[in-house]
């Protein structure tokens, strides 16, 4: 039983439409529900502020909704895609587009809900600063949308990708991988940039005097948390625009797919870890505004170290992309790149989150007593170095898989 390529492309487009809006809706709804829950709490605490809380809840939800709308647009494009005369590669492009958009919306949707929720709570606690809270929420939520926008860009490129003249093997893995890598790597960054945005909004309600410092911190924190998604996007573009025609089909496809999986999974932990550190720094600034100058270096050092694990994963991805591949159809030859990418990708999740926790505790401590900042930063680095060790084991095993066995 064999079907024409048009049938397969149509099937992939419909499946993709479902996946894109399904994944996208999941997290957006959680974020908006969280904001609505906090709004309810806020109104019960301070019923006189019900109207502004409601207004800001709706604004915040509307911004969070945008990730869902991006997913809906991609789903619509896929559902009504013209499949006449399409070749089989187009099916993989549609699936990749769906994964890129759907997964990328998962981080941004919930992440944007965090500042919206804190804005509602802040208005009830401190009605005088509602203007500042709303502004901060809008900036913070908009920052959170960036990973979803990366996902949408890759998704659009894939939907309108010109596959003519490309061989099915191994290009399908590059095209599918471009979407998968972008989508996976955006999840952690979306959540991670929501955390400092939420914490800064909460901080402005508690300490309106510190608003400008908090906003600066939020912008730095959110921007640095985006880095893992940018690594994912770089790998995605390499997969799309490098020439794979000379790569042998077997085991070439596994190298291409592995490159996407490694950076995609590896970006998750550092994205969240960076968000934890920046969020605690914001809480610390709100507590003691004059500690910002002392705390920011510790925060940035912590975020950088936590970022290191995604850099390992990015490195493994690049190795997979540039290694000369010998044609071979044994199962071992294509299992090796897949095993190495899973090893490094999964192995980077824990250290990213663990180091985020170390950094988060350190900035909190420094905000409570600056005199020990130097010592605390040193001990933070010792703690992070030990936490890093498992990521290094993963890197070693991945490199052994690629170069030794």
């Amino acid at each position, binding site marked *: 039983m064999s079907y024409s390529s048009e049938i397969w492309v149509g099937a992939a487009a419909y499946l993709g439409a479902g996946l894109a809006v399904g994944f996208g809706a999941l997290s957006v709804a959680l974020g908006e529900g969280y904001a609505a829950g906090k709004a309810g709490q806020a109104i019960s605490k301070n019923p006189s502020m019900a109207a502004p809380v409601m207004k800001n809840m709706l604004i915040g939800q509307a911004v969070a909704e945008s990730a869902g709308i991006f997913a809906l647009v991609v789903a619509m494009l896929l559902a009504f895609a013209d499949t006449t005369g399409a070749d089989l590669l187009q099916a993989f492009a549609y699936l990749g587009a769906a994964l890129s958009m759907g997964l990328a919306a998962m981080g941004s949707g919930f992440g944007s809900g965090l500042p919206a929720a804190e804005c509602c709570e802040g208005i009830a606690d401190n009605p005088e600063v509602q203007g500042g809270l709303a502004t901060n929420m809008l900036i913070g939520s908009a920052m959170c949308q960036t990973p979803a926008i990366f996902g949408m860009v890759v998704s659009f490129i894939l939907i309108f990708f010109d596959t003519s003249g490309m061989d099915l093997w191994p290009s399908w893995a590059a095209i599918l991988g471009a979407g998968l890598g972008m989508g996976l790597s955006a999840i952690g960054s979306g959540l991670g940039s929501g955390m400092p945005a939420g914490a800064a909004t909460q901080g402005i309600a508690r300490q309106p005097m510190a608003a400008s410092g908090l906003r600066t911190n939020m912008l730095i924190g959110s921007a640095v948390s985006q880095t893992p998604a940018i690594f994912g996007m770089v790998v995605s573009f390499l997969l799309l625009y490098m020439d794979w025609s000379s790569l042998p089909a077997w085991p070439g496809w596994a190298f291409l797919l592995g490159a996407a999986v490694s950076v995609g999974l590896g970006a998750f932990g550092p994205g969240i870890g960076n968000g934890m550190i920046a969020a605690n720094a914001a809480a610390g600034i709100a507590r003691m505004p004059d500690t910002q100058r002392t705390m920011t270096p510790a925060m940035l050092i912590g975020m950088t170290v936590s970022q290191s694990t995604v850099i390992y994963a990015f490195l493994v991805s690049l190795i997979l992309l540039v290694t000369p591949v010998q044609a071979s*159809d*044994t*199962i*071992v030859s294509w*299992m*090796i790149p*897949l*095993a*190495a*990418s*899973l*090893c*490094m*990708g*999964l*192995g*980077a*999740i*824990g*250290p990213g*989150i*663990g*180091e*985020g*926790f*170390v950094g*988060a*505790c*350190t900035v*909190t*401590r*420094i905000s*409570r*007593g600056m005199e*020990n900042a130097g*010592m*605390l930063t040193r*001990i*933070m680095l*010792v*703690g*992070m170095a*030990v*936490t*890093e*060790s*498992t*990521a290094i*084991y*993963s890197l*070693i*095993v*991945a490199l*052994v*898989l690629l170069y*030794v*066995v």
Partner: protein
Amino acid sequence: MAIEGADLIRATALMGAGLAMGIGAIGPAVGEGFAAGKAIEAIGRNPKEAGLLTRTMLVGQAVTESTGIYSLVVALLLLFVV
């Protein structure tokens, strides 16, 4: 494509090694991060005991690391011995 039995065994051993180290690295690292975070909180509260607390943190992390090392050992066994 016919897959030889010996090849299949070798391939699954390699994938097993990758998964063992990849998944096995998640838990210890989160746990060690938690230990270090709490140690830093404690040192901030009582800086005089920094030496003792750092030692305790390292001992705790060393024990937490053990499962990561088990994963590494199993991964290396699968890579080189099996």
